[in-house]
């Protein structure tokens, strides 16, 4: 398996393809460590609740049915996200798995962000939901 350079990551937010407006993405999941250490032993942990966090950087676009129009009504709601390392690879496979998060919650959106002379960006952080990895 070769290293991968991210050039063509597929990103859909609420069923909307926004890959060509993004330049950074991070999909993270973690399972909380719950301590069950008892007297007489070393520290011991078991898995607790899972949390998923997805951060997507988008270049803002106020055109119809584009970035801002898509994101604005999602704040305070849950939706579905999909991510794949190589969008053009087609169907999911072991070397190009698709990660789907249903019930991902978006708490906030910054429609206008950036300095003078910079590209207007918006950074989205989705949390929670259920993560499924698809390889076929």
């Amino acid at each position, binding site marked *: 398996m070769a290293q991968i350079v991210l050039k063509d990551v597929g990103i859909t937010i*609420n*069923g*909307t393809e926004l890959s060509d407006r993004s330049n950074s993405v991070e999909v993270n999941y973690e399972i909380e460590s719950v301590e069950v250490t008892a007297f007489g032993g070393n520290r011991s942990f078991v898995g607790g609740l899972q949390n998923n966090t997805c951060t997507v950087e988008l270049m803002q676009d106020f055109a119809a049915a584009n970035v801002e*129009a*898509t994101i*604005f*009504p999602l704040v305070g*709601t*849950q939706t579905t996200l999909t991510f794949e390392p190589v969008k053009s690879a087609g169907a999911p496979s072991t070397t190009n798995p698709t990660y789907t998060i*249903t019930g991902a919650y978006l708490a906030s959106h910054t429609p206008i962000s950036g300095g003078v002379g910079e590209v207007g960006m918006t950074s989205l952080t989705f949390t929670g939901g259920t993560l499924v990895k698809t390889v076929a």
Partner: protein
Amino acid sequence: MTTYKVLSDRFALGEIGKTVDSDALAGCNIAALVEAGHLAEVSAKSKSVTSEQDK
């Protein structure tokens, strides 16, 4: 089941001009998709109901 027409080429679950039903949109925030201009609800055609009348 509600049917929606795809209005946007950014919508990944159906081609522009086609229709999708609410089952295919499971997990999506449909209200947000409509508000964003990606989908429009297709009005159901009302069926004409003819009642038999006693003559």
